[in-house]
């Protein structure tokens, strides 16, 4: 019975993985709701969403957690609501949010579908995300404030450029009905660089700079939901490695910091979605014996 439930859930997850683009579209409409143009009362800026988007977007439903963290850092106040939201969502799903719900990740996925040669970035480059989180989001606003601070995260954010700067520079929203590019040239330039980068590597913003991804990637180690690797089922075929677009080193481990839990790799028999509510399964000697040597000494990248 239990094995049947397991098989069914595995089949469901695989099927769901195929529908990821539609799930992302649904979440996009939740975070950036076109109905706000007609019913502005639907705006809930007091609450943080768990995804990376700009709260200044005319369609934005919730506040951006990174923007709120940076602003609170500049105000020298601890943001219990934003931190609690990130902690609760991170502890439940880990970086599943990045792969399935983030609108800026969705944009990168869409641009990445354009058939151009893709380069894989080395793993150590992901560490720059923590520098962005610590520097641009927390320390610089804390010590230098947000007003007239040229490196405040919102002033260089590409999501802000596409969701707020471009709409608010357009003749439809400016007071004089003219384009105003000059004031936001820096942000627009950064956006252009990242759009170009999206053509040649998978999710460059997420891999290199996303501060929210940095927070969720840490929670990959402690989330209620995780990717379980069963060594006994691994045939050392490298299928999981081929399926992983983002070149996480833990294709077989699922708890890697670069994993966005797109669940593409669950097509491999050795990987499945697990939760902490399932009882701990100790790895037996047989498992260890049957584990291919290449996994025991898995390369760091």
């Amino acid at each position, binding site marked *: 019975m239990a094995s049947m439930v397991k098989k069914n859930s595995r089949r469901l997850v695989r099927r769901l993985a195929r529908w990821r683009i539609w799930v992302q579209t649904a979440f996009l409409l939740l975070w950036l709701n076109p109905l706000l143009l007609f019913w502005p009362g639907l705006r809930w*800026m007091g609450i943080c969403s768990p995804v990376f988007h700009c709260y200044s977007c005319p369609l934005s439903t919730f506040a951006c957690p990174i923007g709120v963290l940076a602003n609170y850092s500049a105000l020298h106040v601890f943001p219990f609501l934003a931190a609690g*939201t990130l902690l609760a969502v991170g502890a439940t799903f880990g970086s599943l949010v990045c792969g399935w719900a983030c609108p800026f990740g969705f944009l990168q996925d869409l641009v990445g579908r354009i058939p151009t040669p893709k380069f894989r970035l080395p793993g150590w480059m992901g560490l720059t995300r923590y520098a962005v989180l610590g520097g641009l989001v927390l320390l610089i606003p804390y010590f230098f404030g947000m007003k007239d601070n040229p490196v405040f995260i919102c002033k260089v954010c590409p999501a802000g450029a596409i969701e707020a700067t471009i709409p608010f520079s357009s003749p439809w929203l400016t007071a004089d009905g003219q384009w105003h590019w000059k004031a936001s040239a820096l942000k627009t330039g950064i956006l252009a660089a990242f759009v170009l980068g999206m053509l040649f590597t998978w999710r460059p913003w997420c891999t290199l700079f996303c501060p929210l991804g940095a927070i969720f990637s840490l929670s990959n180690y402690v989330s209620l939901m995780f990717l379980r690797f069963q060594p006994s089922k691994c045939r050392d075929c490298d299928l999981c490695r081929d399926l992983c677009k983002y070149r996480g080193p833990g294709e077989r481990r699922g708890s890697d910091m670069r994993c966005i839990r797109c669940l593409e790799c669950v097509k491999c028999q050795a990987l499945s979605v697990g939760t902490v509510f399932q009882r701990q399964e100790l790895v037996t000697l047989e498992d260890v014996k049957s584990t291919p040597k290449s996994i025991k000494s898995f390369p760091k990248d």
Partner: protein
Amino acid sequence: MTDPTESRKNANGTRSVSAALLRPGQWTVFGYRFVPLLLFAAGICGIIYGALYHLIPVVEKRVEKYTVEVIDDQQPPPPPPDWGPPGFGPGWESGAPPIPPPPKMKTEDRERQKEILTQESELTVNRAVTVDGIQRSPTGQLVWANQAAVASATGSGGEGGKKGPAACPT
């Protein structure tokens, strides 16, 4: 991080995965993993505390208008046509000092800045920071700034406020 497949020999010779070697999310108490549940509970507590109980002192600087009566120095009261110099009017007796005429008063509108300390919830502050509505002053106080934008964006903080898109603060 260590791999769950790493194992070591126990005293009885069997191999098992040491809990210390596993990811924190797999540390167990009576077979159940407690770290994720603990973090989830902490997150929920943070949300409840932040939404309901965390109050942030914010100074609201209001310009208050009031009216006062002041002596009109520019326009002394005109003497009655049939009287002599001011101060020697009816009731004046010889030798007594002249009675000063009553000064002419005028009303003047003045403004004064009043600081009101309010306790704002995180929900309100979250809304306000999306339009740079609250800023930290050099003295360390949090002050409302750009209240018109806050009122426009949040539908609060002033008369005539309407909910609408937040203007891009950058």
